[in-house]
């Protein structure tokens, strides 16, 4: 019953958002049926589109897991974007060095490098200053995020990671570190089984960690009540650092997975905004790792569907954002539905009693 509600309500809210969005789209002179048709077919209409949707959702899911850890530990990691890019940078650096290593070992090395880099980026400065000086993590993670992105940019814009004689971009990572594609047929969707497997494992690990281990128990206790945590004998400072490290670790992992699976090199674009979208992903999932999969896929579908909308029905990209914003807003407001139903019922009973 409870779980049914938790699925039905967001869906109802999405439908509401879609209706309002449809009215808006129609008012702006587009045919809502075509717009939504292309959105849905773009997200799920073919094997490749589904592959695209999954590929687009993977970084959101993995970063979202990290955000969920931080929220459950009572911390707001708003700088996952920078941790993501630092993780990507580390993975790429290892990816085009050490080419003599066996492929699988090299691959693991890259992934681990990305994870460690992300963990340190969130854990060292934001984590330690939060634990020992009390600096607010929203500021420090945000500042470190900007620094991380600028650092990555510097490295490939004339810095040591720029591929010699080329546009600002890093060298490509070694062939044997690149994730194999799912099937050749889905190659354009860049969907790789390895990346999917890593995401699924990550979800299971985080779920297990948060709800089944003493580590997760301690993180959640610190997140909910620091004084009780002290009373329980938990080292609050340590777990503050651990929480931010873990949170950054998953952002870094996402960066590594994206580099190994999709991009294969650091490009001078830096506009993914995964760190911000993943906050929404995690919160809509109530910071629950399993829910993060659903929310991540939802946003992946919105991204790919939105791209398709532009191509098929010539809807400007900006309108996609308008719709996405509306959907997020209304899904957040899902509680309005039972409230409206309750209000309606009460009014009816009131009427019937006053009529009687």
């Amino acid at each position: 019953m409870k779980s049914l509600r938790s699925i039905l309500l967001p869906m109802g809210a999405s439908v509401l958002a879609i209706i309002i969005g449809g009215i808006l789209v129609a008012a702006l002179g587009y045919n809502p049926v075509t717009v939504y048709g292309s959105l849905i077919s773009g997200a799920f209409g073919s094997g490749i589109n589904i592959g695209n949707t999954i590929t687009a959702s993977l970084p959101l899911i993995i970063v979202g897991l990290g955000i969920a850890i931080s929220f459950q530990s009572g911390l707001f990691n708003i700088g996952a974007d920078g941790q993501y890019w630092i993780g990507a940078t580390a993975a790429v650096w290892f990816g085009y060095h050490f080419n003599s290593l066996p492929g699988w070992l090299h691959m693991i090395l890259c992934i681990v490098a990305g994870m460690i880099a992300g963990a340190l980026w969130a854990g060292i400065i934001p984590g330690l200053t939060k634990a020992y000086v009390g600096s607010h993590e929203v500021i420090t993670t945000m500042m470190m995020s900007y620094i991380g992105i600028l650092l990555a940019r510097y490295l490939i814009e004339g810095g040591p990671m720029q591929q010699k004689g080329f546009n600002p971009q890093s060298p490509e990572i070694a062939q044997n570190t690149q994730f194999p594609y799912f099937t050749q047929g889905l190659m354009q969707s860049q969907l790789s089984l390895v990346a999917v497997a890593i995401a699924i494992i990550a979800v299971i690990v985080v779920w297990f960690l948060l709800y089944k281990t003493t580590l997760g128990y301690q993180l959640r206790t610190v997140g909910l009540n620091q004084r009780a945590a002290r009373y329980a004998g938990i080292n609050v400072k340590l777990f503050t650092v651990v929480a931010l490290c873990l949170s950054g670790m998953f952002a870094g992992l996402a960066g590594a997975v994206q580099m190994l699976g999709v991009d294969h090199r650091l490009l001078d674009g830096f506009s993914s905004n995964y760190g911000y979208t993943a906050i929404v992903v995690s919160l809509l999932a109530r910071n629950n790792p399993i829910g993060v999969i659903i929310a991540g896929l939802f946003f992946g579908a919105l991204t790919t569907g939105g791209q398709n909308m532009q191509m098929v029905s010539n809807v400007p990209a900006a309108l996609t954002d308008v719709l996405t914003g509306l959907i997020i807003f209304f899904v957040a407001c899902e509680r309005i539905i039972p409230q409206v139903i309750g209000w309606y019922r009460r009014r009816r009973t009131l009427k019937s009693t006053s009529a009687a």
Partner: protein
Amino acid sequence: GTGAASNQSTTTGSNGTNGTTTSNSSGTTTAGKTIKIGLVTDTGGLNDNGFNHLAYVGMTNAQHQLNGVSTSVVQSQSESDYVPNLSHFAQNGYNLVIAVGYLMEDAVKQVAKEYPKTDFLIIDDNITGIPNVASAIFQSEQAGYLAGVVAGLVQKNHELKGLNTKNVVGVIGGQDIPPVDTYIAGFQQGFKKEDPNGKVLLQYTNSFSDEALGSQYAQNEISQGADIIFPVAGGCGIGAINAANSAKVYAIGVDTNQAYLAPKSVITSATKGVDTAVFDTIKAVQSGTFKGGVSTFNLANNGVGIAPLMKGLPQSVQTTVNQVKQQIISGQIKVSTTVQK
């Protein structure tokens, strides 16, 4: 308006979607076969006040002027969208897919090999060896050079009122990347040639969109004595021109004729014919003459150039510009692409 294009030294895709670009004679519309064109922007999007927008202008012009051209555009949200977006068009039978920007090099290579029947055009890159990929590279250092010559002449001879005596010009780059730096390198050399004692300030904003930041950079350079600002920074540069206008100093536009932004300030603009390249390639596809390989756009083929000078400048400036232009075309002047920092 139409028609005047042949008199201009280069084409100007001006304000919005109703600007016209011509390399064919005006008025005539070619009745070609029906073709579908897809445009994939990089993450800068159509509001970049730069090459994404220019490519879009070129494509729209083709749609209006050539019969049977239907178009579609998609703005990539992240680097990971490039392959899916290019593939989408190829897969759906588009005849030509235009990829804007060198960032899409890997993606174009991958997708073009998978869809050999589709033609691809990539802007600002030089992919060779794939028959269905055409690359357009622009020697914008040549355009920058001419702009630098104008700035040098104006500065040295005090050709405009309100100039100070400090002999300083300011350059604002969006980012330290080749499409930006080629302009800047050319500008520095052209300026030094005419005004060897002058000083060129150079700063990078690391943004192509933050107008207010561009304005702040410009104000900083102006406070250091610069009275001609040359921003190569997309929307950020528009803020710089805005600031120059407010401070009653001068500016030089980029990519397209930006005189409309501040007619009293913009002396000229260094232009880059991305729209022309796109238009011509679409035409080639329609007439079946598309060829893979790298096309270089430069002063010689009017692929890059300089917009008409501001009214009130003496004819001598125009004369010098024309001379220098001929010297570059003939190879007498060689313009380097390396920025002096």
